[in-house]
C-alpha cells in the first residue's frame, strides 16, 4: 500500500509518466481533488476526462477546494446530451456516452495537443466506468492506446480506478504498462 502523500509527491516530482491509482470508493473524490490541486497549484495545466461524475458535480467539488479551473480542459463522457451529438460549452466538451471511445480519443488528442505548455497532465477518471459500458478487451486496448499516446506526448498521465475485486485482472494487466502504480486505500 502506498501512502497518498508520497504518491502525490511522486506525481509532482516526476515529469513524463503513466500512473495508475486504485482508490477506495469512500476516498475516491478526495483523492482526485488532491491530485488535481497539487498539479494545478504548481501551475501545470491539463485535461480532465470524467466518465464517472457529471462535469457540474466535478466542477462544484473543485470550486469548493479552490482548484484553478482555468488550467483544466474538461471532457465529460457521462452527461447525456439531449441531441445525441457532441456538445461544447465554454467550460467543457460533452461527448454524450462512455461507449463512444472514438470521440473520447479525438477529444483527448485535440485537448492535450492544444495546451500551450510542455509540462501538462491528462487525468482519466475512471477505468471502472469504461468497463460498465464496454467489453474488457476493448477497455484494455483503449488504455494501452491511451498509455502509448501519453508517452508520445511526454505528459503526466494519471488513470484512476476504483478498487473492485472484479476488475483485478485488468488492473494487474494494465499495471505492467504503467510507470507508477499505487493502491490508495
Amino acid at each position, binding site marked *: 500500500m502506498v501512502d497518498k502523500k508520497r504518491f502525490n509527491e511522486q506525481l509532482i516530482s516526476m515529469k513524463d509518466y503513466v500512473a495508475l491509482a486504485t482508490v477506495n470508493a469512500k476516498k475516491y473524490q478526495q483523492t482526485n481533488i488532491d491530485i488535481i490541486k497539487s498539479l494545478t497549484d504548481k*501551475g501545470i*495545466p491539463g485535461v480532465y476526462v470524467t466518465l464517472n461524475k457529471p462535469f457540474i458535480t466535478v466542477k462544484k467539488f473543485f470550486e469548493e477546494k479552490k482548484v*484553478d479551473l*482555468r*488550467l483544466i*480542459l474538461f471532457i465529460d463522457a457521462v452527461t447525456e446530451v439531449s441531441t*445525441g*451529438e*457532441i*456538445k*461544447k460549452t*465554454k467550460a467543457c*466538451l460533452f461527448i454524450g*456516452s462512455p*461507449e*463512444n*471511445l*472514438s*470521440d473520447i480519443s*479525438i*477529444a483527448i488528442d*485535440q*485537448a492535450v495537443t*492544444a*495546451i*500551450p*505548455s510542455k509540462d501538462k497532465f491528462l487525468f482519466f477518471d475512471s477505468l471502472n466506468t469504461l468497463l460498465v459500458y464496454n467489453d474488457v478487451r476493448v477497455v484494455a486496448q483503449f488504455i494501452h492506446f491511451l498509455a502509448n499516446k501519453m508517452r508520445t506526448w511526454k505528459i503526466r498521465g494519471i488513470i484512476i480506478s476504483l478498487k473492485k475485486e472484479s476488475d483485478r485482472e485488468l488492473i494487474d494487466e494494465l499495471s505492467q504498462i504503467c510507470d507508477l502504480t499505487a493502491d490508495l486505500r
Partner: protein
Amino acid sequence: MFGKILKFLIALFAIVLGLFVIIKLVGNVELIVGIISLTFGILAIIWTLKARSVLSPGSSLRKYTGNFLMCLIFILLFSIWNTMSKILNFQGIFLYFEYFFIVMAYMVFVMAAYQILYLGKEFGFLKEIKVMKKAIKEKKLKTK
C-alpha cells in the same frame, strides 16, 4: 535508411515498367488510366470500410467516414461509367449517368466538408486555450 530508399526505387521502377508494358500491349492510354484509377478507388474503399468497422457506433468520426465512403463510391461509379463509355462508345442518355455520378460525388463532398467544419468547432479548444495561457502566465508570475 539506404535500404528503404533502394526498396522504394525498385518498387517505383517496377510500377513504371508495368505501366509501360500495359500501355504497349493495350495501346489505349485513356482506357489504361481508367482501369488504374479504378484499382486505386477500390483500394481506397476497402481501407475506408476497414476503418469504419472499428470506429465506435454513433461517433462523429464514423459519421464522417460514412460520408467520405459515399464520395468514394460515387467517384468510383463515375470512373467505371467513364471507362465503360470509352470501351462501349456510349451515346445519348447514357452519357448523363456520368454527369449524375460526378455531381452526386461533389454534393456528398460538400456534406463531408460541412461535417469537418462542425467537428472543428466541436473539438477545437482555441478559445479555452486563450484563458489558459493567461492563467499559466499569472501562476508563473506568482511563483517568481
